[in-house]
């Protein structure tokens, strides 16, 4: 019994090492005093300083963030509405629409990228921020739908009817009852869209224009010369920020849960 416990915790740690070792190496080498990626030559904060002077990296970082945030907000709105519509469809129609929803996800990114590029050229759209945002919305919407749909399924249909009975019109019933009920799905859909949008290289590569580029595209362009350690520094900062946000979010979440439970207990 005890042995198996010891074994399973070892296994968990191995998985953790496997997942986080690359990030650990990246973080360590962001403090390395030379451009080398395998020999340690001394501690420095130089890359962090230079990072903030590097216009190209900072600008492409800003572009990446702006595109990610705008596209995932729009995708969240579109996706939530689509999910609500889907949940009320009859089975056959729903399965057809869902198949089309899955398509952008299972389609190789490069095909989506090329297809979008051709479409934008056909429509004579100038490549730039607008094409990037449209493209990102396209592949973000399915993730939102897939996160919101299960929440709608879990929801008791009667709560909506009850809200109508208690004097809500359909709009207020929607905003006051349905939306709060499916909020966790919306939030996780939004976060997933945000992540995928920030991650995306292939599609952005095809639809970014002459005036802007996203960070992944900028990093890729460095491979002929050498990827600058400034990228390590930036990645470290991003990792730290995300970690912090998650920690705060989870701590706050667990606290809310605790107080919520206490309240419930008190009521009884």
């Amino acid at each position, binding site marked *: 019994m005890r042995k198996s416990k010891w074994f399973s915790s070892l296994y968990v740690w191995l998985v953790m090492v496997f997942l986080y070792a690359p990030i650990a190496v990246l973080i360590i080498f962001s403090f390395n005093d030379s451009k080398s990626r395998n020999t340690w030559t001394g501690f420095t904060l130089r890359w962090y300083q230079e990072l903030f*002077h590097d216009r190209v990296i900072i600008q492409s970082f800003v572009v990446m963030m702006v595109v990610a945030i705008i596209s995932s907000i729009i995708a969240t709105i579109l996706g939530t509405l689509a999910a609500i519509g889907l949940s009320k469809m009859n089975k056959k129609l729903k399965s057809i629409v869902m198949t089309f929803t899955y398509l952008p996800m299972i389609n190789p990114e490069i095909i989506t990228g090329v297809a979008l590029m051709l479409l934008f050229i056909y429509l004579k759209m100038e490549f730039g921020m607008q*094409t990037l945002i449209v493209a990102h919305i396209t592949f973000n919407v399915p993730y939102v739908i897939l996160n919101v749909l299960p929440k709608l399924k879990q929801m008791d249909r009667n709560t*909506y009817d009850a809200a109508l009975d208690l004097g809500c019109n359909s709009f207020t019933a929607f905003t006051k009852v349905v939306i709060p009920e499916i909020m966790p799905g919306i939030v996780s859909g939004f976060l997933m869209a945000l992540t995928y949008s920030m991650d995306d290289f292939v599609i952005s590569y095809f639809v970014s224009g002459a005036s802007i580029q996203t960070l992944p595209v900028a990093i890729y362009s460095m491979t002929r010369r050498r990827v*600058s350690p400034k990228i390590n520094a930036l990645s470290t900062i991003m990792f730290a920020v995300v970690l912090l946000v998650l920690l705060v979010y989870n701590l706050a979440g667990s606290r809310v849960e605790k107080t919520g439970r206490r309240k419930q207990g008190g009521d009884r």
Partner: protein
Amino acid sequence: MKHNLWSKAAGLALTASLLLSSLSVTGFADGETEYDMEYYSQLAGKDVTINVYNWGEYISNGDDDSLDVNAEFEKLTGIRVNYTQFDTNESMYAKLKGGGTTYDIVFPSDYMVSRMIDEDMLEPLDFENIPNFQYISEKFRNPSYDPENRFSVPYTWGTVGLIYNYDMLGFDPDSWDIMWDPNYAKQILQFSNSKDAFAIALLRLGYSINTEEKFELDQAASLLKDQKPLVQAYVMDQIFDKMQGNEAAIAPYYAGDAINMMAVNDSLRFVIPKEGTNLFFDAVCIPKIKSDTEESRLRKLASEMYINFLNEPEIAAANIEYIQYSTPNDAAKALLDEEIQNNPVIYPSDESLEKAEVYVNLSPETNLYLDELWTQIMSAEAGYNYWSMPVFLLGALALSIGITVMKRNRRRKRDQFSYDNNHNTF
């Protein structure tokens, strides 16, 4: 005849620009650096923006207290610069060819310049607006890729050579043969880009790196196949870490990058093999301007000012210190450290360049054939065959049909026990 005319025109332009610059007020922009303010302030306040498309890490950007060239240009001229980067000539070409974007400045390599000239993708430069062309070394004018020098101004140049670890080899090789020496199996690195890898094989065979003979290409391909078991890895920029960390003994790479590696690891040395090598140029060009409007004319002038600015001796020197390749700009070279100017790795003697060849644009058929050969070399062991794709597709189809049938069966069975499953369909 044409050449003559051109040099006359260039001469005229030169005298005109000299006259102009002697007349104009020269200003002090940066305390020490002197720019022709009358020239550079032409477009101030006109709200002009240019889109510059350069290789990654290929301009001085303010690292280590170096000069931030783009910021400096914006400050000097009031022209806004949108700066984006590409990774290969081919991806840059595809972006331009695809349309939907307007680039004002691109930095193609030699063979890509001639390809773009052939396909009418470049705009002739007005050298009257680029007086600093005077600093470009005579050797590098009218290059083979742009014989009349109408479309491009060289930005950097360099050679491909052999980087080797002297401590691991114990002697100084002088031939590409060493890359096929079984004594150093798994100590050899090779380019992962087909053009450079083929060039090395062709040079070893004594052929031109620009050959279009199928027979010669086939021979080179089989040579590269033979080399495969000896190669530790096909790489590009990982060469830095592998060579610096003594993980490999022999690698071909660009001279400017070799300097970087040699600065970190003392046992590394560089040689241009006796069979000759590839001499490469990266040039600055203006892509074809599609519409003739007031705005496009201003943008072209702004782009030419940018090219001129890149050839200001101080600016070109700052860039070359950052990039560490070789500069075709004589005035900039004179500003570099004595040590660098006399370094035979970066500025090899004319004799060692005698056998160096510049890439030219190959026919589309040859390019296609090269791609095909390269795929064959890379997948030689993978056992790729043409049937695998349809078999895979059929398999996937059969699997999905199987799953659907199974699901349906299971549902039918379940339905026998409970008739109502459609309760929760909100």
